[in-house]
């Protein structure tokens, strides 16, 4: 080593070397193909095998899909057209079933002249979650978020406008109880008041008030029954309602599972594990077969409402686990700082812990929603018309008897587009959060 040092001669560069292009074998398409597809014998085999798979799939599917027939009123007409153009041996899709029945797949038996109502409701929903997802939007938009559930309910089911308004009034009463009576009677008392007053109001006053108002000022939309709703609209209603309604319960369960109080902790754990240990389909059958057993005699409500209740309970257990993850990801110092400032448990949860934990949980909540949205197809087994149920119904009709793949492809594509984009969004959020956390 010392030799080399001794022989080193002082050197000063006199001209700087310019940047040069890499040799041809190290750049461009040649390099890319070589590195990515043909670098080793195994790689060559894999490439060939992949090309073969792609060829087999595409050579079967593409002609079938591309030469498909869009204009027909029944499968037999489709076949007649096919025989005429391509001959009887050709295998081509009959997309006509989609072009004829797509509104049904999207909306079920919702009256076609009122399609604008669910569409508007959905747009409203997007507007309502925007201020939650994007902090840059003005905080005033949260009022829209608060009002959205009632307006959406009214738009979709119709009926008098006073019903949702009177129900919303109950929440206003609860808020007023906390806000105005709170300072005088303390936190515990005001919370009690905020629960008791609205419940009393809903039980006693809301009904007569709504019917009274609707006789005086009959503003309303035509009513649509739950059984007319189906297709992707139904899947969205159940999925969105399930997730939104399950959030409060899920948060409470997550806090319960973190609690030091033995009983609260154990009850939360048992609830979560029982719900998660049993398949959704069993819970749906429970909703359709058993829910009436557990409620006072004579209570009888809509199957769709029962499903929404059950789905809410179901997803609350999953949301609870997501939120628990968010709570666990929070630094212990945050809890300590809140304590040290003198905030009590609920205040520190509300002001410090939950805002952060929920933000961390949003990707998980979105993923739960994707799962739930896919699972809404299971309602077909208890007699609701989800997209797959509708495809069965369409197949049962005389015109379209025997048609399978076109319907499956359409339904699958719709689900794919929706779930894939949501999944990408949640991935993007996760990455963004990780960046911010660093």
């Amino acid at each position, binding site marked *: 080593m010392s030799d080399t040092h001794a022989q080193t001669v002082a050197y000063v560069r006199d001209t700087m070397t310019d940047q040069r292009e890499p040799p041809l074998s190290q750049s461009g398409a040649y390099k890319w193909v070589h590195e990515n597809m043909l670098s080793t014998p195994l790689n060559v085999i894999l490439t060939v095998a992949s090309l073969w798979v792609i060829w087999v799939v595409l050579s079967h599917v593409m002609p079938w899909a591309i030469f498909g027939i869009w204009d027909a009123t029944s499968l037999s007409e489709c076949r007649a057209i096919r025989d005429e153009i391509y001959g009887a041996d050709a295998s081509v899709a009959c997309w006509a079933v989609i072009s004829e029945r797509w509104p049904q797949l999207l909306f079920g038996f919702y009256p076609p002249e009122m399609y604008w109502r669910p569409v508007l409701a959905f747009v409203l929903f997007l507007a309502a979650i925007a201020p939650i997802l994007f902090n840059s939007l003005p905080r005033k938009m949260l009022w829209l978020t608060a009002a959205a559930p009632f307006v959406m309910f009214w738009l979709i089911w119709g009926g008098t406008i006073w019903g949702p308004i009177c129900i919303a009034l109950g929440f206003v009463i609860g808020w007023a109880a906390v806000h105005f009576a709170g300072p005088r009677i303390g936190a515990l008392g005001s919370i009690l008041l905020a629960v008791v007053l609205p419940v009393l109001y809903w039980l006693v006053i809301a009904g007569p008030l709504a019917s009274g108002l609707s006789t005086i000022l009959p503003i309303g939309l035509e009513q649509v029954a739950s059984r007319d709703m189906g297709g992707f609209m139904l899947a969205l209603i159940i999925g969105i309602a399930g997730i939104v309604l399950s959030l409060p319960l899920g948060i409470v369960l997550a806090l319960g599972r973190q609690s030091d109080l033995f009983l609260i902790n154990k009850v939360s754990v048992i609830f979560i594990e029982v719900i*998660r*240990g049993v398949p959704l*389909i069993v819970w749906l059958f429970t909703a359709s077969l058993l829910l009436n057993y557990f409620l006072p005699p004579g209570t009888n409500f809509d199957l769709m409402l029962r499903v929404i209740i059950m789905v809410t309970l179901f997803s609350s257990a999953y949301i609870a686990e997501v939120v628990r993850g968010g709570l666990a990801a929070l630094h212990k110092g945050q809890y300590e700082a809140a304590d040290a400032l003198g905030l009590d448990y609920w205040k520190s949860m509300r002001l410090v812990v939950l805002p952060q934990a929920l933000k961390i949980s949003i990707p998980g909540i979105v993923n739960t929603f994707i799962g739930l949205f896919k699972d809404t197809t299971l309602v077909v*087994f208890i007699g609701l018309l989800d997209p*797959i149920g509708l495809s069965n119904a369409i197949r049962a009709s005389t015109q379209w008897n025997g048609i399978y793949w076109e319907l499956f492809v359409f339904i*699958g594509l719709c689900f794919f587009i929706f779930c894939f984009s949501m999944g990408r969004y949640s991935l993007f959020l996760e990455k963004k959060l990780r960046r911010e956390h660093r």
Partner: protein
Amino acid sequence: MTTMTDPPGQGFRLSQLIYDTRYRSLTIQIVAMILLMLLVSWLVANTITNLHALGKDFDFGFLAQPSGYDINQRLIEYDSQSTHGRAAVVGILNTLLVAFLGCALATVLGVIAGVLRLSNNWLVSRLMAVYVEGFRNVPLLLWIVLIFALMTESTPAPSAFRGDTPTASMLLDGVAVTNRGVYIPAIHFASPFFESGMYNWLIVLIAFAASVFAVRRLGVWAAARQEATGDRPTTWYLTLGILVLPVAILFVLMGAFLDLPALKGFNFQGGVHLRGSLIALWLALSLYTGAFIAEIVRGGILAISKGQSEAAFALGLRPGTTMNLVILPQALRVIIPPLTSQYLNLTKNSSLAIAVGYMDARSTLGGITINQTGRELEGMLLLGLFYLVLSLAISAVMNVYNNSVKLKER
């Protein structure tokens, strides 16, 4: 630990129930307990009233009554004279069967797809991405229905195999894919040790388990030799021999022969008949869950930082050794918890058997039995309990495995 904080001379005040940390938690829990009891008793009271109004009671006696329905797919003896209880057991075994098959195939598919997705072959990794995203983002039910439709609509009828110029032919002369299911060869014994086929297979299974155990001992021995001498003895041919020979000898002793399915009359006879419902459910569950497992495997391998493999390469370990000794032990720790929940999901999703008419626990105990006896409450309760116990059991087994992986890591 002594308590000290009460100022002397001050007795117990009622406000301490809320404002004293020693009593506060007790107070809250008692209040919660009372509320919970109220809720439960309200539900129970409603149920009792409702049952009474319907003239029903709460009784599990129906399980001992004859069921009066047939089950086409069964692992144990069963006919329509058997009890509802036995029907439930048949269904439970069917659930376990498809769940087990599904978990096994999903793991294989998932690991292959996950590893291939990380391949530096652009085409393969893209193809796997399409598989993963395609299956993950479409409801499982659609896949089940679709694959079942493929099985029934796009496969030839048994009659297509007949005649001098059949339109369909059997694969390797032993497998027939028809719209009534798949027929595969069965192994029968010419000179069995026992009357009942089950015991013969049990012997084979025991022999195989012993072989596996012996192979593990061999591995331990090889490791000991390596520690003592520095050279690891070559054991692959011993491993192969130990695994194959005992079972092969048993087969020869019992005179095993292949029973090939053959077309007789309108249907295939002989061999093993796998119903379309089982296959469709099995494939759909495996493909769907495999897509999720692929992501887990990929995430697990990616989670092991690049630095780990670089460090191993820098020490002169070869890629294979690096994978076995450095990457996998760490990746498994990341992979196993989410893998467990995928197994749980698959097991629970097997209840979608309803879509193809596969007779699982939900279809027997939670379906036909309930319809015939009107025992919704009892039936659903037992069904829920079954799934709960199954979920807990899978979690427990995977936890044990997870702990063993963790121990290895230290």
